[in-house]
């Protein structure tokens, strides 16, 4: 299989990472060699194998629904690149 530049552009859109032409070409090369290596998995027949979705085979513990952290609004916005009063500020979305 081969990942072309069109696919790279599509994935970069999905991943929200802008890539210029030069980066896209480098990424296509890298991903193709990595996927060549990954294709090895096709040697294995896995039709009747149950997928392993969690390695910790325990059921999630339940707990009571209580508020544990109070008044941490300031802490939450403290690290934001831009904020205004109690809000995160982003570039204008609505015209």
């Amino acid at each position, binding site marked *: 299989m081969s990942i072309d530049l069109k696919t790279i552009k599509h994935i970069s859109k999905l991943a929200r990472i*802008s890539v210029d032409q030069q980066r896209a070409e480098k990424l296509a090369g890298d991903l193709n060699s990595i996927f060549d290596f990954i294709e090895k998995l096709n040697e294995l027949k896995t039709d009747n194998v149950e997928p392993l979705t969690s390695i910790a085979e325990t059921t999630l513990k339940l707990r009571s629904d209580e508020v544990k952290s109070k008044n941490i609004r300031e802490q939450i916005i403290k690290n934001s690149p831009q904020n205004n009063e109690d809000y995160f500020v982003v570039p204008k979305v609505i015209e």
Partner: protein
Amino acid sequence: MSDITKQSLTELVENIKNKKLSSTDVTKAFIDRSEKSEKLNAYITNDFTSALDKAKKFDQKPNLDLKLPGIPMAVKDLFCTKDIKTTAGSKILNNFVPTYESTVTENIWNEGAILLGKLNCDEFAMGSSNETSFFGNVQSPIDKNLVPGGSSGGSASAVAGQLTPVTIGTDTGGSIRQPASFTGIVGLKPTYGSCSRYGIVAFASSLDQAGPMAQNVKDCALLHEVISSYDPKDSTSIDFKRNHYSKELTNNIKGKKIGIPKEYRVDGMPKEIEDLWQKGTQYIKDCGAETIDISLPNTSYALPTYYIVAPAEASSNLARYDGVKYGFRAKGENLIDMYEKTRSEGFGAEVQRRIMIGTYVLSSGYYDAYYLKAQKVRRLIKNDFDEAYKKVDAILTPSTPSSAFKIGEKTNDPVSMYLNDIFTVPVNLAGLPGISIPAGHDAKGYPLGLQIIGKAFDEQNILNIAYAMEEKINFKNKITDWWIK
């Protein structure tokens, strides 16, 4: 007392408890040596001034019942530390100051230890050589221009170079064991669910585990005892009865059955690794244990499986870095443009590569072919271990397929870099504990490690085997202080 930094954690704890040393003496010694060791680039952020304050405060009213009384310690910069910058080795978190503390570091401070600083690592722990860090590569104390391994490269360099008595790293595919092996120290990757993931910058959540790195097995056991705890704040933390690993440590492994998996004898493996492994099996026998040839038939599929599962989880975990809530933000013409530029400028090349792989294998039309397939193979890999553990108590393998390589040697070929983790990755996929111990040197004088893999929650057993072997191996790390002279 001279040569404080040469002492093991166990010796330092004893000397502080017997009042032969104060916390201030010890903290000062490690700060001095760290300051002389800038060339190693092991630290991203230091906290020396407040470390010394804390040490003085400790000495005024020392609580000597604690497990790490007044012991200074630097930690990997993947652990969130309250009010101390935490970067994960990335530009995108270059200005991030957590308002909370990770459970694992909290456990350490609760036992009396003092933070020295935050140690360099591959960006978001993605790398095997510490060359992907935004803060530059780390030098190995073993030799100039040699990689310390990764991703916990700063941690390995700091322990081997005696800038910290012990440290903690994280291990998603080998990030504790491989650098431990490259630098001649001991590194334990605990069972998945043994140490809380709360407050650790997430890479691949079904694989990530924190663990201790130390000069010897006893120190490693003591630190593991401190960091392993059940934590309701991590939904995959497991509530099981934990041992007093250091107290229960014994070199009596008579009658234990140790498996030697034939599939780990990979093509192109240097003869010195094969010889080391042979020597390891002899040591096992000398300790009164038995070795048994076993098969883990799906071993060669572990790395391809890992390179689907880990990037898939990473692409989801790293979606949170959007320039809005915290971290770096680039200017954009609109919201989408801002997201795309922030992530393009904020993430380094390796991280972008892995996000792209992960996004692709999870995207519509490819999910079944890649992600689901990988989850199925992951089951087969786990089944191999389950089957083997019907016959043996633990498994012995080399830690890595080669000794440490030169800086820049593998940066242009991602697949050859990934192959470094060929012996460590299966352990993460199966959620098992694994420990790497230094076991010899290659022709260049670089350290080589052996790995002992255990059953889930059987850390005590692999620590005991490591402890018994350590005594037989009698390894001496060749640290010349080249970076100080």
